[in-house]
């Protein structure tokens, strides 16, 4: 263990915690670091760390994935998507392809890409094809996508955008009180783009302690300590435990690109519903590269179970922090990374997959090895 981690752990264990305190983390990257380091097993037992709505694949509307799949099944189209998206199941009868992966097996040309820039290169390589980039993600992903829209794009490239802002989901959780927590670890990567100030609403409007954290266990432990100490002292402010990277105003260039590329609109979140001013939509100037404008609408809202979670799947509750992954009846039984039922078991940022793949079987299973 690093001396810094030891320092924060000692401070945390020295706090007079007389009740259970719940801290929510928003980002899938945070959840992964916490699970990989086994932090839950070294924190005092009355601290609960709740994974929140920070997985873009998990909250991507089922209709959008269905639309991407329909487009990919069009012979003219070569569909590009982030690898995480390929296995997310959509609600269709068993006789039809039920994920992008299955559509690919049925002959659709679907290729996973790691960076938005790959989309331009592939479109240039295939001038005879309609190349559609299914771009789903939060601010950190949408900033490079915005940079893409700011360029002179090949005519045969269009984007199916499913972009979301992070803070409206947290604001909804706080306003609706649908999930109770005592403090928030704010997402460090989002803050590098949008600025830490964006999270001031948590302590100011909701009087809840908050700390922006980076992605090392050390930074996360510092943020946990800050949250706990604020709670114990009855104070609420926004601490920045990622100050070396995340600035109060964020990255103005990235924000300008986002503003030039997208309108901020009301948007649907899978398992949550419509959140006001939470989605990115390409501006009219980019209509020629907007796949929703270029191709006919495949969303077919009348489709059975359109937009719903699969039967028995509690991903919606997991995303909103209402239950832990292991409290879903399907966790590790009907739903595993190899045979995922819901989106949270598919994505590397989904709480269920992170927990299952890193051997977290129960939020109470601490320590694993009896002394």
């Amino acid at each position, binding site marked *: *263990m690093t001396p810094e981690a030891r320092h924060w752990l000692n401070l945390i264990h020295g706090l007079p915690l007389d009740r259970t305190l719940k801290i929510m983390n928003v980002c899938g990257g945070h959840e*992964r670091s916490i699970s990989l380091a*086994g932090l839950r097993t*070294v924190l005092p037992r009355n601290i609960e760390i709740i994974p929140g709505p920070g997985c873009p694949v998990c909250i991507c509307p089922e209709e959008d994935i269905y639309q991407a799949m329909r487009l990919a099944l069009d012979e003219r189209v070569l569909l590009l998507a982030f690898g995480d998206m390929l296995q997310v199941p959509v609600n269709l009868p068993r006789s039809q392809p039920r994920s992008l992966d299955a559509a690919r097996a049925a002959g659709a040309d679907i290729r996973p890409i790691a960076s938005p820039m790959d989309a331009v290169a592939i479109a240039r390589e295939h001038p005879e094809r309609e190349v559609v980039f299914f771009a789903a993600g939060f601010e950190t992903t949408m900033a490079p996508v915005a940079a893409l829209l700011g360029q002179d794009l090949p005519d045969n490239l269009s984007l199916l955008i499913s972009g979301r802002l992070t803070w409206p989901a947290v604001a909804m959780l706080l306003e609706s009180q649908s999930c109770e927590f005592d403090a928030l670890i704010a997402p460090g990567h989002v803050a590098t783009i949008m600025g830490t100030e964006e999270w001031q609403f948590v302590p100011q409007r909701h009087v809840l302690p908050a700390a922006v954290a980076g992605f090392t266990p050390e930074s996360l432990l510092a943020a946990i300590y800050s949250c706990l100490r604020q709670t114990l002292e009855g104070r609420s402010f926004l601490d920045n435990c990622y100050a070396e990277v995340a600035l109060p105003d964020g990255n103005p260039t990235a924000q300008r690109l986002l503003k030039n590329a997208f309108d901020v609109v009301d948007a649907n979140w899978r398992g949550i519903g419509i959140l006001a001013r939470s989605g990115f939509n390409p501006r009219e100037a980019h209509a020629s590269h907007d796949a929703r404008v270029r191709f006919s609408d495949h969303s077919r809202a009348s489709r059975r179970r359109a937009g719903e979670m699969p039967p028995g799947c509690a991903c919606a509750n997991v995303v909103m922090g209402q239950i832990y992954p292991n409290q879903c009846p399907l966790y590790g039984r009907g739903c595993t990374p190899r045979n995922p039922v819901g989106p949270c078991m598919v994505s590397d940022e989904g709480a269920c997959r992170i927990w299952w*793949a890193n051997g977290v079987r129960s939020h109470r299973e601490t320590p694993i090895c009896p002394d």
Partner: protein
Amino acid sequence: MATSEAGVIELCHGNGGRLMHELIENVIRPALANPMLDTQLDAAKLPALEGLPVITTDGFTVQPLEFPGGDIGSLAVHGTINDLAVSGAVPLYLTLSLFIEEGFEISRLARLMKSLGQAAASAGVVVVTGDTKVLPRGQCGGIYLATTGIGVMAPGTNLGMDFVQPGDKILVSGSIGDHGTAVMLAREQFGLSGSLLSDSASVLPLTRALQGLEGVRFMRDPTRGGLATVAHELCRATGLGMNLWQEVIPVSDQVRGVCDLLGYDPYYLACEGRVMAVVSMSDAPSALKRWQALPAGSQAAIVGEIQSNHSRVVLTTDYGGERILEELENDPLPRIC
């Protein structure tokens, strides 16, 4: 035209006729140079073996065929003799089957055969018989190899999972995941590249070094699925558990970096020249000393312990936390050996 290194493999190189004969005589046989390989015979006659015979077989499909630190030729030797070595045997003979794709450059085949021959010679094994097939274009990614190894059990060797007991220590002979990562970097997937070398090597010096040490219970080379997968096999077979200690498991900086970037766990990545050994508590320090005295074992470490109070593979993290290392679900890196 006679078969020379300038050409490419054609389907008729596998038809048993003149071209195949030339290929074997001009390209394959010289690289494997040994008096026991008589290409005129259908089967090799071996001298009587002194000791309990041991046999193993393995297929090799790695992509790319050549990677930093090795190639499919040397790998086809190391993979098979290492299986014999960790069983406590001394490898003696190999058979070699080649499945070559039409259009494969003969110069490249010669290079791979030379590498295979050198790996065999330095491990003291001889290729005694073989077979060559040619497949139509597009069918095997260049070349597949299959080797079968025959050896004899070293006298007094008694290894097996049955001997493993609670309190036994887990040793690894060097950094883990180098081979899997080096092959992945050589593919330049995800826009990544690097200078990491595969650990592909004969583990004979390591297994020999532990000979005669009574407390050695079991050895395995953690290839596909890595250290975690061997740990699981051990736990499943014995009903015992295993604790591994992250702080002391040797992982190179490059492997760690790739794992951080791509979300892989190094404990599941393949090695091709490392040994994991289970050794009694009392003999573990002396086993470690023997390994550390070798160039191949300079990074050897005691990395864990067999437990009787649970039956899982549990990693104690750098932060003192614990997490279960599950059985591998999806292979993150197919075709690495």
